[in-house]
Each structure stands twice: as C-alpha cells, then as structure tokens.
C-alpha cells in the first residue's frame, strides 16, 4: 500500500510518500502566499512526480500540521504529536523524547513503541518557537540555514538578555552599538533560545534517547547547545523537516 503524508505548516508544506519499505520520495515546499490547499496539492503532485507514480496509486492521504484541517483532499487527519511518535517508532525505536520546533509552535513529546505517551506544547510565546530565529536571521540578513554555522564561528558569545522575540532586533542593535560582532550576538541569542526550548522538553521529563526534528534540527549551533546542556547526543533524522509528514503517511497505512 502506498500512502501520502502531508504536513501543512505555516512556513512550508512537506509531503512524503511511503510504502511498506519506508520513504519513496519527499518534498518540502515553502508556503509563500498561496493557500494551504494549493500548496498541499502542489506538494502532492511534486512528490508523485519525483517517485514516478500516478495519483491513483496512492491509497490514503494522511494530513497533519497547523493547517492540516484545510487540506480538503485528505482521507485522514492526525494530531502532530501522534505523527511524531509514529515516525520515531519507525525511524529509531530507542528514541523516547522528541523536540520539534516549528515556526509558530514547539512540541516536546515522549513516546514508546511509536505511540505518544506525553506532550507539552508552546503555542503562546514566540521566544520559544522558530519565529525567534527567523527574526534573528532577518536582522543579520543571514539565511536561516546558515545561522548555525555563523554561530559556531563565535569566539565570545554574548549574554543575550531579552527573551521576547519582539525585542530581538533592538537587543541585537544595542549589542552591535557596543561593538559586539554578529557571530557573537547570533551565538548568544541561539544559546538563550536553546535553553528555552529545552525547558519545554524538561517539562515532560527527559528520557533518552532524544531526537530533534523540524527545520531547526539542521542548525548545528542549536543542536550543539542542547547536546552540551543535556550531556547527550541527539538523534537527528536524515530529513528532519519531513518527520511529521512521514508519521502521517505511516498512520495512513493503518486506515482503509
């Protein structure tokens, strides 16, 4: 059985095709200003083309993500935590805690054998979501994907005192006026950010192994900060951004 999983997020829509052997193809499309259903449909077409399959070959379409309920062609909708647990149970069953930092909300889950056992969600404060990092990247005109690498070059990371995402720019500007370098400011800001998202994980109790997914899992400085704080290595999947979509596709396999 071939199933499609779609994670309809705020900044990107992710699509993964699976069968009993695992992932067949995956795509990540930035959302831009198109409607969720348009982007999701584009993602569906792209991923099918990538795998060389026709739409008829897909049995079920499982959808998740903040805007999952808007994808009208879905056959099933699944909660994000449930998808994450399912994906991790398949990718690395020894993982019992997962951190997923999205653009407007962050999740920390605990899981066992592919099932969700506990969850904590931050959807209230941007200081602990990807929005904080986006503002930082925008201020320094550094691509988000490069932000971690820039931070790793820092010699003396600053104490970035403001936690509120709204004040990132003014705090960064003040530090620059004081003569601090961009890489030291970025490293300091990311260090503070790491401790905030880590507190989300702490709130449900950390149980190794620990994984991190979502686009920010590609940020090497962030991952390094978290690993140093925990004293443990994180498991980062090969395509951390598509983990939720993969989970949705796996769950859709169980739905006739």
């Amino acid at each position, binding site marked *: 059985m071939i199933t499609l999983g779609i994670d309809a997020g705020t900044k990107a829509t992710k699509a993964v095709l699976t069968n009993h052997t695992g992932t067949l193809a995956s795509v990540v499309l930035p959302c831009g200003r198109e409607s969720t259903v348009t982007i999701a449909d584009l993602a569906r077409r792209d991923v099918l083309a990538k795998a060389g399959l026709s739409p008829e070959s897909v049995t079920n379409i499982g959808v998740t993500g*903040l805007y999952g*309920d808007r994808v009208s062609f879905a056959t099933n909708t*699944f*909660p*994000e*935590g*449930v998808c994450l647990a399912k994906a991790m149970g398949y990718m690395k069953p020894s993982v019992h805690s997962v951190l997923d930092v999205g653009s407007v909300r962050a999740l920390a889950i605990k899981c066992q054998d592919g*099932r*969700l*056992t*506990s*969850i904590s*969600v931050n*959807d*209230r404060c941007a200081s602990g979501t990807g929005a904080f990092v986006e503002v930082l990247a925008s201020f320094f005109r550094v691509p988000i994907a490069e932000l971690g690498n820039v931070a790793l070059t820092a010699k003396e990371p600053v104490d970035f005192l403001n936690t509120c995402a709204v004040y990132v720019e003014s705090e960064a500007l003040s530090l620059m006026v004081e003569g601090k370098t961009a890489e030291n400011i970025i490293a300091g800001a990311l260090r503070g950010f790491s401790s905030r998202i880590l507190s989300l994980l702490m709130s449900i109790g950390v149980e190794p192994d620990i994984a991190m997914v979502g686009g920010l899992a590609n940020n090497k400085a962030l991952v390094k900060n978290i690993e140093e704080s925990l004293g443990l290595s994180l498991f980062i999947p090969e395509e951390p951004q598509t983990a939720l979509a993969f989970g949705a596709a796996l769950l859709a396999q169980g739905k006739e």
Partner: protein
Amino acid sequence: MSTGYMRNLENEIIKYQRRIAKIKENPDPTKLKSNLMLYEIELEDAIGHLEDFKAGKPSAYGAPGHLLRAMGFCGSGGGYAAADRTAQGEGSTRYLDMLRDGNWPELACDRTVVAILLSNSGDSPKPQFVSVANTSCEFAGHTAQALAQSGHVPYYVVDIGNDANDENLKYVTDQLGEMVEYIEAKVPGVKYDEDKLIEHQHYDREGSKILREIYEFRKRRPSPVGARDAQREQGPGTGHRNPEKGLAYMRAQRDELFERAEKGTGVMKEEKLRLLWTTVGINYDESIYKWLDEQGVAIYYVFGNHARTLGFTVGFYGDPWNGRKLTPLEEEARGLFYNSWNGRGQRLIDDWMFISKDQGVGGAVYLLQPGCLPTLNLRKLFTDAMEKAGLPTMSLEIRGIFKEGYSQKDVKAKLSNFIEICLSKKQTKVQAI
C-alpha cells in the same frame, strides 16, 4: 434602591425564549429532552427575578444561599452560574472591556470578577447585602468586598475553621446566628424564616438523592449523556424560585438517562474514552463539546467537591452529625465546612480521585483558569495523584468566560494528542491484563 436597567436578566429572558422555541421546532437528538424543562424553569426564574427587582425586593450576593433565601432575599443574579451564563453572549467581550476600562485586576478569576461588573454596570441589580466565607478562593472574598464597598451595603464574612469538629460547628453556627441578626437589623424587609430554611434543605436533600442516582447511570458505557449536557448536573437543581419544578426537572433528567442507559443508547455509538474535566468549562464554545462527542469521548465534569454534593464523603442535609440531628443553622454551618475551597486541598483531590476511579476515566483535562488560586495551586497535587493511579492529565490554560486568546483549533489539536495518549495508556493496560 437602584436596580439599574438589568440588561443581563432581559438578555437571559430573550435567550431562554429563543432556546425553547428552537427546541420545540427542531430538537437536537444528541441533547437531553429534559433540557427543555430546565430552560422553561430558568426562563421563569429570570422573569420572576426581574419582576422582584422592579418591585424593589431586596437581593443578596453570597453564601449560604439557602439561608439568604430563607430570609426573603430574591436572586441576586450573581454567583458562578450567573457569571458563566454571560459567556454565551456578548459577555465574553463586554465584561473584559469593562474590566480593563475600570482598572479592575485583569488576571482575577473571571467567574468571580464578572459579578462586580454585572452589578456596577447596572446589567444586574445591586445587592442589598453581601456575605462570603473566608476560603482559599481569595477572589470570591475580594469580589464580595468590592461589591459591598462599591454598593455601600452591609457585608459579613463567615470565618470557617479547617476542621469539621464540634468546636468549629458551634463557632460557625454562632456566626451564622449573628449574621442573621445583623441582616435583620441592617436590611429592611427581610426576616429569618426557619421553616423556609428547613424547606430549602429538604429540597436540597431530595435533589442530591436524584443526583446520586444520575451519577450511577453515568457509569454506564456508552455514556448516556453528551459532553455539553455533562456540565448540567453540578448541583441538586433546587435553587430555583420554584424548587418543586427544580426537582421535577431532576427526576425527568434521571428518567431520561435511565432509559438511555438501559437501552445502551447515548450520543455516541462507541465510547472510546472517558475523561474527567475539571475546574471550569469552556462556556463560550459549545461546539468543542459536540466535537468530543464525535470523537467518542465522554466527559465527567467536576467543579469543586462533587463527591461531597453526592454524599459520598460526608452527609446530606438531614444526616446525623456525630450521632445527633443538626439544627437548621448547624446544617448550613456543616455545608460551609465542606465548601469546595475550604479546608485542606487534599480533600478536593481525594474527591476527584474517587470519582475518577469510580467512573473509570482514562485521564483528566485540568483547565487552568487564570486567577483561580486554589486550582492553580492544586494542579500539582492532582497530577501527582493521577500519575500514581496511572492516569494522564492535560493542563489547558483557558478562561471560563472571556473568550479573548481562545483558539478552538489549538484546543482541538491539544485534545487530539491527549486523547491518543489516554487511549495508548488504556491499550497498554489491557495488554498487561
């Protein structure tokens, strides 16, 4: 005496008339048929209260309710239930705006502070007397004090000891006696009528018995009652102007649930999960409850010490105290001892745990109502007790009346994840057996 223009009561009358007409024209099969009776009683209450207030009859805000009614006070329109009802209309924004305009504490519990706003705006009548018991619900005390001070009316605080013993029973009963004398001296037109108090206590006892029968039917699977209707059974239903009708409604509800339980019918074909829902309801969004019904999730709602109301933990009105029958005033004193927010928090936790186990819930949704100091502080005790029992708890930061900041989408997402966690635990338990 100023009673304002009573916009709130007028709105309630229109609301109940509309609901009654809607049910008669197009009944919702998922809701209880007896709701029609409840709305008719509440319509009668609202019309009667409005007439009383227009005629200048005195009203009171506070506790004990039976005692104040036995003195001849008419309904004040205050209290949690009246405040909750404002959430279904314009109140979800109107009173929050007033709160900010008036520089009242924004993070006070909305279920208490709305009473001040109702009264000060003239939406509800101003009380001629205010009383409060000094429990851990500090905002109830502050609200009563603010109502009394802003309305320049007599105010009485009943000091309740922690322990339910003979010494404290006398201490609290003496205060109630003093309060009665104080009211008679300060408020013209009211007088203590012991026969009336006995009558109210009788109705309460009868109503509690029916409530207990309903509780037993509620154990059946699938739940004979939907998530929205599950929130209707918090009291014995006899606080209405016509308590006989209140009892008749309770009996009709019981019979309807009995019929559903016997036939195995309810609002859902299969009950996948039962959750304890505590501290406050989402009063401005009924559709979230319909959604829970659709998910096959039944709710057992508890506010305060529900097990006490049902007589599981201490006696009903009329039950003996240390082998003797209590006087009517002593009965009221005993009732205050077991006020939800009085005494040690552990008692409330024990009540909720008793119901959780007895009703076979698979988890609990704990709403964190901003400003509700007792429940915010009790969360840890409750989640620890639930965890020990192998049951997960989800905390949800939501206001009961003010809709601002509420996202149904987010709440559904959180509940969906939580339901899965509970089902997963349930499955693990079944596998272990």
